[in-house]
């Protein structure tokens, strides 16, 4: 006989046998998260309303997020050694730790909470409020991902980690919030430090010192992880983790190919689930997500062959930075105004578009660092705006919705430059849109609608002559 959650899990791509196998874990997870029968109707309505569940790949993707949630919530009881990293993060170190031992669970838990407790169950607000009450108060433009992480720990929903990898090469807030978690719970940290100190005009060039410094910091953090977690990272760990994640990158290349079609075959809401999963999970979530992606890309190829899409053919094509992680209504808004989104900055920059490396480094840390400098995301503002520029022709764009996150300083640095730079270099219109990408309480879809609608009308008029 079905339990109250079976229908939701089937909707999210679980096979009946999988539900049976997971039943005790699902129930233990839901107990910790205070999810009960009364939450199911809303969850199903949200999933159907915001996601294209006619696609099996989308259903499986939702399932991959739920599996990551279960593994996260139960990691302590299941005697895993738990490692948290921030989002966004250079993925190599986390993947290497994950590949080194079955007993290590490595994740960006805030993203998992956003995509499940936010997107599916609409129960993120109390978690954010708990984060606000435990050191990250509202009104100071502090990161809402970190509010979710600290709130999740404070409420006992997710375990206190055994170790933290701090993204000290990108985000000041993240490393300081790791300090907060250490002050509150005594968690050891490895700070992977770097400095985005290239002068404007240098990109795509960068000093070898930057690669060496960041690379050495990565190597040092891995050594510390070995000591703290009592694991051994084998010399081939980087190669093995690369091989493990290769199918995802291969699928990403296929996905970007199908997204070149007009009309685009799938909503950016689903792209968001993919891009975030690759940045949040190093374990079952991403393994299942890669399988889901395989199914999804195949389904999308069929749609393209049939000339089917989610927006009208000829709709203006815009690139956005990223989709909303906890409230798909905001991402949906863009397509509701008649725009199609073939690419997000995050998706493209995380492996979809090839980069040319500068040098042949030997250590895993330096190899990772060299790639990240060349790719541009962790290089700095100039690397990021040039990535947008490069995507213009590849995806045949008509404009940009260049979001900047008011509560994410590394992204907020781009607030004004990206509009001026892209308008001047591409000649395309740019909507600079201030958002909170992880929390829709202050920056809701309704608050953003007028700006996006007006921009969409202008783009349509421009495109139709």
């Amino acid at each position, binding site marked *: 006989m079905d339990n109250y959650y079976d229908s939701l899990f089937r909707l999210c791509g679980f096979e009946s046998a999988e539900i049976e196998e997971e039943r005790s874990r699902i129930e233990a997870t839901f107990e910790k998260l205070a999810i009960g029968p009364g939450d199911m109707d809303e969850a199903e309505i949200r999933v159907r309303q915001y996601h294209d569940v006619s696609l099996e790949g989308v259903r499986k993707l939702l399932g991959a997020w739920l599996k990551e949630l279960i593994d996260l919530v139960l990691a302590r009881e299941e005697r895993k050694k738990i490692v948290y990293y921030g989002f966004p993060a250079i993925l190599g170190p986390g993947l290497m730790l994950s590949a080194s031992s079955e007993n290590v669970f490595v994740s960006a838990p805030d993203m998992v909470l956003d995509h499940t407790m936010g997107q599916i169950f609409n129960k993120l607000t109390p978690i954010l409020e708990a984060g606000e009450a435990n*050191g*990250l*108060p509202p009104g*100071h*433009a*502090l*990161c809402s991902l970190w509010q979710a992480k600290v709130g999740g720990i404070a409420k006992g929903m997710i375990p206190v980690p055994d170790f933290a990898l*701090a993204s*000290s090469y990108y*985000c*000041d*807030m993240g*490393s*300081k*919030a*790791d*300090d*907060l978690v*250490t*002050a*509150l719970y005594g968690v050891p*940290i490895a*700070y992977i*430090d*770097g*400095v*985005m*100190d*290239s*002068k*404007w*005009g240098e990109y795509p060039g960068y000093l070898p*010192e*930057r690669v060496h*410094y960041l690379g*050495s*910091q990565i190597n*040092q953090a891995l050594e510390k992880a070995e000591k703290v977690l009592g694991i051994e990272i084998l010399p081939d760990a980087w190669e093995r983790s690369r091989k493990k994640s290769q199918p995802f990158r291969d699928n990403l290349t296929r996905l970007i190919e199908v997204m070149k079609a007009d009309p685009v075959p799938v909503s950016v809401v689903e792209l968001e689930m993919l891009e975030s999963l690759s940045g949040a999970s190093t374990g079952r979530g991403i393994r299942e997500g890669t399988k889901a992606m395989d199914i999804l890309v195949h389904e999308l190829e069929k749609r393209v062959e049939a000339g089917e899409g989610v927006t009208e053919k000829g709709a203006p094509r815009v690139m956005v930075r990223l989709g909303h992680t906890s409230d798909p209504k905001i991402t949906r808004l863009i397509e509701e105004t008649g725009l199609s989104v073939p690419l997000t900055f995050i998706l493209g920059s995380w492996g979809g578009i090839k980069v040319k490396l500068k040098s042949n480094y030997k250590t895993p840390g330096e190899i990772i660092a060299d790639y990240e400098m060349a790719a541009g995301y962790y290089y*700095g*503002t*100039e690397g990021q705006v040039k990535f947008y520029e490069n995507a213009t022709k590849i995806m045949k764009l008509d404009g940009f919705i260049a979001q*900047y996150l*008011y*509560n994410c*300083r*590394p992204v*907020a*640095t781009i*607030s*004004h*430059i990206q509009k001026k*730079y892209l308008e001047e270099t591409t000649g395309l219109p740019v909507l600079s849109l*201030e958002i909170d990408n992880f929390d829709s309480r202050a920056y809701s879809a309704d608050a953003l609608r007028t700006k996006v609608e007006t921009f969409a009308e202008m783009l349509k008029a421009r495109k139709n002559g």
Partner: protein
Amino acid sequence: MNALEKLNAHLETRLTELGKAKERGHKVIGYSAGGYLPEELILACDAIPLCFIRSGNNSVLKDSSSYVCRWFDPFWRSQIGLITSGKDPYYNIVDLIVIPITDNHVRVFSNTVGYYTPEIESFVFGVPHVKDKISLDYYQQGIVRLRKKLEEYTGIEITKSRLEQSIDLCNKERELFRTISSIRKSGEFNVKSRDFVALNHGSLLADKETMIDILELFIKEVKENASISQEGPRILFTGSTLAQGDSKVMDIVSDCGGMIVMEEFAEGLRPYWDTVKLEGDLIANLAESYFWDRVCPGWFRPGTERLDFLIKIAKEYNTAGLIWYQLMYRESYKVESYFFPGILKKKTGLPMLVLESEYDAAESGPMKTRIETFIETIKGD
């Protein structure tokens, strides 16, 4: 003329003097606040260092709004407003701007200079956020590049003897600041915080040798003058940035009968606790002193070195409380301000008041109420 009058007179003619120095072929090198630029390198090639420390006026922030959103530290938005508007002659007179990049608030200033004002030549180098051997090396590589840039820019080679002379000069200035700061420990001498801060700010704009004379004169005056008259509670004043022009908190504390006896700020005040060694590799010595020996700002990770330092000086200066003054959106300080009061209380028994500012005049009223209450509370303890 007393020392502070002499400083004011010097600063009144400083811009004119800088203009004349430029005519004589000297370069004026502007640099961003934070204490990570070794002025010794600039002095060693006969150039003139000038630190960007002016701020505290909300109207300047409006000038920055064409270049960056509001969610950055107002000090750094002010720097953007000042450099782009051309309203402050100190920012217009420089030939080259050097920006040691510490956190993303400084990086946004660097981006603005690089992208929006390409006509102003700039040079950037990074300051890591952790202290270990590789981060020290990285910082040193940055100042090695800076040395090369300055030599090319000025056409003067920074020889060992030139660098020794400039280190010696800067060591003397730091030593004088240490002397002034340290004599406040006893409570016997009358050194007002506002005067100490004015001297410190002045030193970031003034001619180095003139400044040393002024500091020596100040110490002489302090020792000759009457001992301290104010009886209010002794306060340690700390935070991210104390700009020239941002005296609101100091004024209110004084008005409310409190006495700031020590200041610890990452930006705006010159670090003065360390001496650069004159033996061996001088560039390595500069890196060691400016990066390694210096107590790190709040955006270092972890920030425990600074927090331990605050506990140490709170005790050494015999303080009754700590005022933590942070600027809005400087997340490193905001996060630390949540958990540090508990640590401070546990280790010293002292209370801490957290104040925040966006350089808005409307803040003064609520700030005064909070400071008054804080001072009354510690008076009663």
